[in-house]
């Protein structure tokens, strides 16, 4: 999908001499294993969604020791680069290469989108592959992406980006006519660039959404979404005057983190508890949410609570805007809330819960398309029904 992106917005931006931050700042090396260990411990093989586990680790309220760890990780990343090369060689020698481990190590990086981690893991597969024909490589990739997908079925963007990458490999006609080595290096190059693509997509979305944020408006946001943050940041940079209402985002309290970020930008923020959405909806002009995945019906799967916010907004005729990169478009079609792979996560109620009491642990819900107004994607501003069109064109 990236080849059709509405990047003209960025080009226009560049003409205006707004320097685009260098995407290469995203480090390309896997984070150190120390953090991976802690996360592994966080994620025992119980029924807890690895995806939301990671998210919680990334977006939960920042604790000081987490910061220290992250700091250390950045410091060590350069050394790791060397290690990575070594390990590449080592794979050929004997140590089995596991795409899942690779992915997990990438995933630990807080700044990296899930999809980017997946693509990088697949790139590592290509790098380690001993295939000599395109077909062999394709089969190997297929196997890797399948195992990757099955390793965490709760992450939609992981599945979507694996599919997308496979699509690119099997569909790009240029690959068929090149000799194997150049095709391979082209694939690797493409996957390396994916981080950039993901970053660029975020920029495009931020630019596209600027027309919708007007002076004096009040925006309700739910959850912590890098894209939404980028949108708001850009609006603040553009000297727009607006106010943000942040939901608390229990149990991860992701809203707290977003309000922190916004406060740093001097944007007036008000924090709500999740149940105060309807109470304050009348002063809201628009709702902005991100998405874990955009599904084929045009609806979104997002953090728990999005659906009820959309319902309230819909009943009060407030627009609901979704900001999502196009690599989050997934070939899923949930019919209702229960028609999704369950993604449970632990919830801390602060007090012990008796055994007899059941706890709803699902981490996300599905918002049907009729409650969404527009989707801001790097393909442009879309109505929900266009999502399926894009998916059909991409996958069929």
């Amino acid at each position, binding site marked *: 999908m990236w080849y059709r992106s509405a990047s003209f917005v960025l080009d226009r931006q560049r003409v205006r001499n707004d320097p685009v931050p260098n995407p290469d700042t995203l480090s390309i090396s896997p984070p150190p294993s120390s953090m991976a260990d802690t996360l592994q411990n966080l994620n025992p093989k119980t029924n807890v969604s690895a995806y939301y586990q990671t998210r919680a680790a990334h977006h939960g309220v920042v604790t000081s020791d987490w910061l220290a760890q992250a700091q250390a990780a950045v410091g060590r990343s350069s050394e790791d680069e060397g290690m990575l090369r070594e390990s590449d060689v080592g794979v050929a020698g004997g140590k089995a290469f596991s795409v899942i481990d690779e992915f997990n190590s990438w995933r630990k990086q807080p700044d990296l989108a899930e999809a980017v981690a997946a693509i990088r893991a697949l790139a590592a597969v290509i790098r380690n592959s001993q295939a000599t024909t395109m077909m062999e490589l394709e089969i190997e990739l297929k196997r890797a992406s399948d195992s990757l997908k099955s390793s965490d079925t709760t992450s939609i963007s992981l599945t979507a980006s694996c599919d997308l990458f496979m699509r690119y490999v099997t569909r790009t006609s240029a690959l068929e006519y090149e000799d194997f080595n150049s095709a391979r290096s082209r694939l690797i190059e493409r996957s390396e660039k994916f981080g950039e693509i993901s970053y660029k997509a975020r920029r495009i979305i931020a630019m596209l959404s600027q027309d919708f944020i007007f002076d004096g408006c009040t925006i309700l946001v739910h959850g912590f979404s890098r894209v939404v943050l980028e949108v708001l940041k850009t609006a603040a940079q553009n000297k727009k005057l607006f106010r943000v209402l942040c939901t608390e985002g229990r149990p991860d309290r992701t809203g707290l983190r977003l309000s922190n970020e916004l406060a740093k930008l001097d944007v007036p923020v008000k924090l709500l508890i999740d149940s105060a959405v309807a109470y304050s909806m009348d002063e809201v002009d628009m709702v902005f949410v991100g998405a874990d995945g955009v599904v084929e019906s045009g609806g979104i799967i997002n953090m728990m609570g999005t659906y009820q916010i959309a319902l309230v907004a819909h009943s009060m005729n407030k627009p609901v805007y979704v900001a999502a990169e196009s690599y989050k478009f997934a070939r899923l*079609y949930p*019919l209702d809330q*229960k028609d999704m792979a369950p993604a449970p996560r632990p919830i801390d109620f602060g007090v012990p819960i008796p055994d007899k009491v059941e706890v709803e642990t699902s981490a996300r819900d599905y918002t049907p398309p009729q409650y969404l107004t527009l989707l801001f994607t790097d393909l442009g501003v879309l109505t929900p029904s266009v999502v399926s069109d894009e998916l059909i*064109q991409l996958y*069929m």
Partner: protein
Amino acid sequence: MDPRRAPRSVIDPKVRRVGFFTGTGQMLPSSAPFADLSSSPSVGKSLSPVMIPPPRHPSDTLSSSPVRRSSMAAAAVDSLAVGSYNASELLPGTSPSGRARNPELSDDLGASPGRSKRSPAFASSSVPASGLTTVSVVNLHPEKAVSASVEVQLDRTTTSKSLKERTSKAERRALQEAQRAAKAKGSKAPTTASGVVTSANVKSAKPSKIVSQKNDSGPVATPEKKGIDRPSEKDRKKDVPHPRMQYDDTSRVEKAKKRAVVKQTEARNRVELFRHLPQYELGTQLPDLEAKFFQLEPMHPAVCKVGLQYLSGDICGGNARCVAMLQAFQEVIKDYSTPSEKTLSRDLTAKVSCYVSFFIQCRPLSISMGNAIRFLKNSIAKLPLTLSESESKASLHLDIERFINEKIILADKVIVKHAVTKINDGDVLLTYGLSSAVEMLLLHAHELGKQFRVVVVDSRPKLEGKLLLRRLVGRGLSCTYTHINAVSYIMHEVTRVFLGAASVLTNGTVFSRVGTASIAMVADAFRVPVLVCCEAYKFHERVQLDSICSNELGDPDAISKVYGSRDINVLDHWANSENLQLLNLMYDAMPSDYVSMIITDYGMVPSTSVPVIVREYRGEHIWM
């Protein structure tokens, strides 16, 4: 005239005119003025393009008695029963029985009763051709010219029967019709009465509506109008009824009828709103066809067989009909040899069109069949000229084979594969009627060991659900069977509704067995997701907002008769009651709002994405 036909004239005036109201019943009086024109086909045929209207005798006009007039009107009415927007075109389409009676009529019609009385009215009232408004201004002149010529014809027209009729209304109708005719005069009907003559012997068995009216467009009449006794192959091709022919357009219908191999008797007491659709009485055609079997020179036996199976209802269901048709075409192609001086692609296309028209006469085409025919014609057209005949035949055979395999059989498998992911343990699935895709889906899900329950909802008169029920229960599924009346009761325990479809239109409207829309509506009200299983070859780029303009009418007797219960015979002789019309619709249109998901061979898509599939795959589908 056939007494049974008489009631129709009465029916029409009572009906509120909405939408597709047509002028059928009302053309009668117009026939009166016209009637004096050459009424017998033979006469009409012989009229020269430039007609000199025979003088009308004032004495004649005076002589007509009211009774006569009314009876005449009645006669004219039934004769016109075919229904049409366009009176002028209707005129030539006379039928044999009319001819036989003509002599009788001549005297009374000669009087042109309607005319004498009505001429003042003519100027003031009219019905526009569209029939949507009731009053408008009309120009008289063409009418007059016509009427003059009509006299000749009318000499032979007849009615022996005098029915008390609401003359006044009929007369008014006549006026309108006449004016309509005048309007439409410009468009001359290229048909000829002689065509009818040939079929006369066949038809005579069942008296049908006949009008001995000559096309008013006498002066404009073209040479080709006369003397085509046997429609040539070319004509056949030309006259293949449009799949969505407006059956209230009398002239078209007559034209089609002339060529028709299957003589269908049209049902009486048709509902006004649905007059544009063909409605036939069941059971009259078979002996007729048998008698004619050896006269059907161009008809391939395989085609004939399939057509008759459509007719008798032995083959029904979109896929089954489509496959049967394609297989018949395979036979045709196998036995085909190009006549000398003709090219395969053209001649075969013509032949196929001719067979298709036969199918349409047996039963209106389904959209799936229309698409398949389109595919076949395209693959004939794209045959390289360099191919030898046998090669072309082999390639066509293969194309058809592939179409059946890929677009129908494989598509169903893919649909089942997709849809089965939406069935979870503990689900209660509701389905309506009989859909092959849904049946396969349920059986497959059962084979996978999913634990679910099925609610089969059924409705009269077809009770297709019983078939499905028997097959499901035979395989050990746990089922509930109910009729559509109970759907609102049963819906609250349902978790998914799976429906089949005859077609899915571009705006997401799902065209399916009548009753499906109600099921979907109830499901929507209960917030139960509605999943429609439909192969992509049934998608159509048409947009339709209601189920009126394109539909199919079934046998009205089917709804009046309740089998197995003797005490419900209130409707036994319903056809004799003029105020009763039975409507047995076959399909209805379900708005896209009720559809949660459409499952096709291209995956699961929302109903808003139908146009994308149509756009992206239409080409592939045709040029496969």
